[in-house]
């Protein structure tokens, strides 16, 4: 017997108060297996103990939401009996320790969350953030994470269609790797995790259980220190081939009327899947660990319960259907083992080697899980000091060249060319635009999907930053002509036990709530990653938003690429020229201060709805939203991707960094062919939407007021060179 002492309890991340609760509930000391189970279930990662009082305030419903938070993934209605199933999840800590495997298993895990619900994954996205480009670890982490994401997704044959990459010193010792997966299912064929039917079998399928990833969930909820590299054994190893087989086997079994409930074994492995499934169904569960397929000899009950070996699922099926189900898994060469039974005792009972290893009332684990209303203080920067923006003699083209060759504005092509973004043959709009478009296979409908966050805004003003993250996602989905439906969120923050960090969380959620409500863009799934700190220094608050929208008819959608000469280019939405927290301020002026740009949500909605109508009703085909870097950067992206130039004509006063590079929100650039221009101008005027004419598309150059010009070819080279140069050096 292992003695449960203070040190051991502490190592399991359980505090005095929590341990007292365990003692009084069990009326005895826990066994080591039980201690491990409590530790995993009550880790921040599984229990959301610091975040749930805030998360439950988020809007989670609209008329298209079929399943909100609480299941493996969220589900929305796409019409015609089709549903989209999606979620985003973090794999930050493992990716910092072992970038390839950390990122790969993050992708594998999020796909299981989606196909466990009966959906075939059709799109992967990610949101990845690294430290300063000259930090000694950044190159190694970047290349490892990118190849890990590619390695897993490419092998699975699921296209990686979009994402975002950011570099900022706040992630030096705490990179972020958030992966999102979207799947398609039939509404009447969605599978849930609620166990039911006393006497039904608990079935384990997939890969064997090994010693990898033990206590991954607890590790993922702890702050790092200089010895973090020593935690490498707790990082799981991915096998995308096994997952591909598991995917096909599960989907095949799902066409038969056999599965009662199913859940993947993700964080905290068998422990969390068994506990969550039984708790949701209000039943007890007995497990005999002797039956669990193990990869290594002599694994203890503790190890089996806490292993985070990948590519495993837990299912509930009727005992007389076991043979039929087993045949499917035999075909795919995967393990299939009946490891337990549902009971009416409301207890989790675990036996191993003919010994009772754990017996815990399930309500203690689930509803007894701690929940903290942590004190918080929302801190924001003071107003941006406009006097810091000095007049510059540098030409706008020169500034543009510097900006699009900077780490956060350069082309991400180096990244997404390593991802198979075309497999499945339904990628209609590839990475590099505002949102990716993926056709619903066999239909003429399209999903628009994007991931977004602007952490520097959230750091400067958590409430405004939270609003902006949701609004930018909504704007990106709108830009391609889709109706934004719902989001998944991945909330990456520092240590919530600190007031100001909890204040960042509370502030960002408050901003998100307002944006989700006004834009009718609820949260249907998500994940929280706290303690992203090393040696006491936290990351910028980073709420990564994964947005999904629907294009009902793919005959009309728009892309950012300029398509023709002689279009009229319009800037829609008002430009005040606000430079606070802009990339211009950081890269060119070296100023990182002030409040972020304001988001006017009512205006956002009015302009976005109008743009969407122009695409769907008036057949406008070229739209790009304006975000990081401002107007001239956005227009340059349109030019580069379309290979068509623009003759820009501006009032002289607007040929200024404020106008050209300010990051005012709620703006779009549209390129309008002659035959549409009078209609579109009339519509914008009638809706009282501010716009200004910028110029005409033509030739192969960007020309500003007939005085300054540059070939698009050279802009393209500058834009694409940064990654190659960086990785060469």
């Amino acid at each position, binding site marked *: 017997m292992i003695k449960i002492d203070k040190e051991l309890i502490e190592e399991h991340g359980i505090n005095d108060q929590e341990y007292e609760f365990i003692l009084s509930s069990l009326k005895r000391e826990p066994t080591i297996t039980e201690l491990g189970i409590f530790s995993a279930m009550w880790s921040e990662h599984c229990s959301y103990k610091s975040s749930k009082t805030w998360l439950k305030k988020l809007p989670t419903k609209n008329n298209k939401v079929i399943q909100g938070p609480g299941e493996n993934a969220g589900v929305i209605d796409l019409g015609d009996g089709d549903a989209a199933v999606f979620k985003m999840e973090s794999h930050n800590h493992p990716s910092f320790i072992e970038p390839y495997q950390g990122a790969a298993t993050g992708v594998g895990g999020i796909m299981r969350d989606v196909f466990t619900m009966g959906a075939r994954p059709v799109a992967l996205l990610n949101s990845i953030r690294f430290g300063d480009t000259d930090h000694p670890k950044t190159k190694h982490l970047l290349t490892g994470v990118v*190849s890990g994401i*590619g*390695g897993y997704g*490419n*092998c*699975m*044959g699921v296209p990686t269609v979009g994402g975002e990459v950011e570099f900022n010193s706040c992630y030096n010792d705490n990179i972020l790797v958030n992966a999102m997966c979207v799947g398609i299912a039939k509404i009447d064929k969605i599978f849930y995790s609620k166990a039911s039917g006393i006497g039904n079998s608990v079935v384990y399928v997939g890969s064997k259980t090994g010693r990898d990833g033990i206590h991954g969930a607890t590790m993922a909820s702890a702050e790092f220190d200089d010895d973090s590299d020593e935690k490498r054994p707790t990082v799981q190893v991915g*096998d*995308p*081939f*096994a997952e*591909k*087989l598991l995917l096909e086997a599960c989907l095949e079994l799902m066409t038969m009327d056999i599965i009662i409930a199913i859940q993947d074994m993700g964080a905290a492995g068998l422990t969390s899947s068994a506990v969550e499934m039984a708790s949701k169904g209000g039943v007890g569960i007995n497990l005999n660990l002797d039956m669990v397929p193990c990869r290594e000899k002599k694994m203890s009950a503790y190890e089996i319960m806490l292993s985070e070996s990948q590519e495993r699922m837990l299912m509930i099926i009727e005992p007389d259907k076991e043979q039929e189900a087993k045949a499917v898994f035999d*075909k*795919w*060469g995967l393990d299939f083992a009946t490891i337990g039974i549902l009971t009416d005792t409301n207890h989790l009972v675990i036996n191993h080697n003919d010994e009772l290893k754990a017996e815990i009332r399930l309500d203690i684990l689930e509803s007894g899980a701690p929940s903290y209303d942590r004190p918080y203080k929302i801190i924001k920067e003071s107003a941006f000091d406009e006097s810091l923006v000095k007049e510059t003699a540098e030409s706008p083209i020169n500034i543009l060249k510097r900006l699009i060759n900077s780490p956060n504005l350069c082309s991400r092509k180096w990244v*997404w*060319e*390593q*991802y*198979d*973004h*075309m*497999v*499945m*043959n339904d*990628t*209609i709009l590839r990475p590099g635009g505002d949102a990716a478009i993926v*056709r619903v296979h066999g239909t003429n409908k399209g999903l628009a999907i994007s991931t977004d966050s602007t952490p520097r805004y959230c750091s400067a003003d958590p409430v405004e930053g939270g609003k902006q993250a949701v609004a930018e996602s909504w704007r990106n989905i709108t830009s391609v002509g889709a109706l934004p439906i719902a989001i998944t969120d991945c909330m990456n923050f520092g240590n919530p036990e600190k007031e100001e960090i909890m204040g960042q969380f509370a502030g960002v959620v408050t901003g998100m709530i307002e944006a989700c409500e006004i834009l009718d863009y609820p949260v249907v799934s998500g994940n929280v990653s706290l303690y992203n700190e090393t040696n006491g220094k936290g990351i910028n608050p980073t709420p990564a938003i994964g947005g999904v929208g629907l294009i009902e008819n*793919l005959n009309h959608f728009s892309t950012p690429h300029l398509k023709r000469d002689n279009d009229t280019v319009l800037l829609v939405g008002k430009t005040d020229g606000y430079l606070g927290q802009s990339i211009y301020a950081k890269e060119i002026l070296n100023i990182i201060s002030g409040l972020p740009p304001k988001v006017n949500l009512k205006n956002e909605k009015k302009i976005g709805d109008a743009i969407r109508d122009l695409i769907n009703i008036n057949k406008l085909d070229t739209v790009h939203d304006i975000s990081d870097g401002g107007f001239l950067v956005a227009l340059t992206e349109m030019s580069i991707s379309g290979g068509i130039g623009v003759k820009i004509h501006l009032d002289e006063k607007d040929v200024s960094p404020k106008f050209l590079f300010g990051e005012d929100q709620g703006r779009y650039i549209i390129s309008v062919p002659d035959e549409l221009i009078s209609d579109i101008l009339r519509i914008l005027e009638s809706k009282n939407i501010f716009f200004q004419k910028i110029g005409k598309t033509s030739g192969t150059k960007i020309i500003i007021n007939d005085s300054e010009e540059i070939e698009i070819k050279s802009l393209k080279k500058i834009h694409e060179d940064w990654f190659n140069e960086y990785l060469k050096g």
Partner: protein
Amino acid sequence: MRVSVIVFPGSNCDRDVAVSLKKFSNKSPLMIWHKETSLPDSDLIVLPGGFSYGDYLRCGSMAANSPIMKEVKKSAEKGSSILGICNGFQILTESGLLPGTLIRNQGLSFICKNTSLKVENDKSFFTHNYNKNEIVNIPIAHNEGNYFADENVIKDIEDKNLVAFRYCNKNGDINEETNPNGSLKNIAGIINEKGNVLGMMPHPERATDDITGLNDGEKFFTSIIESIK
């Protein structure tokens, strides 16, 4: 028309190629699971892209030794046509149905992008609807697509006009700069001497749908289907 698509565990372009075949022939191909030990009589057998058996050993080497490949070889000898795309091409070289081998991309990373190809052999079962030297846009997506063979093999392939496609740019220039993966002589696809086996790294099935912006694979599939008729 009898077409069989072999499905290995880890194949992931099987559906895509089946969709393209159906689109141009109006008939769904048979999907043949790798454990089958007999193969229906087929005019065309397709080895699709993917990561057969995880490709944890050399790409395609496990699949080349699977039971179904014995049957594929027999069919090839009897005159069935065999098409290997991407992982399928790797399986064809591993099983000796085509010469040479596919090694790791020169840049050591996976590459997914559109590539321009020059059609060199416009007479084959698979390519007769193209014109000689036509430049077509067909994407690649692979980590091990760097075609390698010894000098004699390359000379033999070239002398006999067995190169189906070479990587180039929009102007048709074939050089180091237009070579995405380091393949010798920019070779993207080859045909066997008998003319019934073709292997290529680019994915013609990803270029058969106007809405994706790529349709240069259409002539590839119509060539095949007309050849069968």
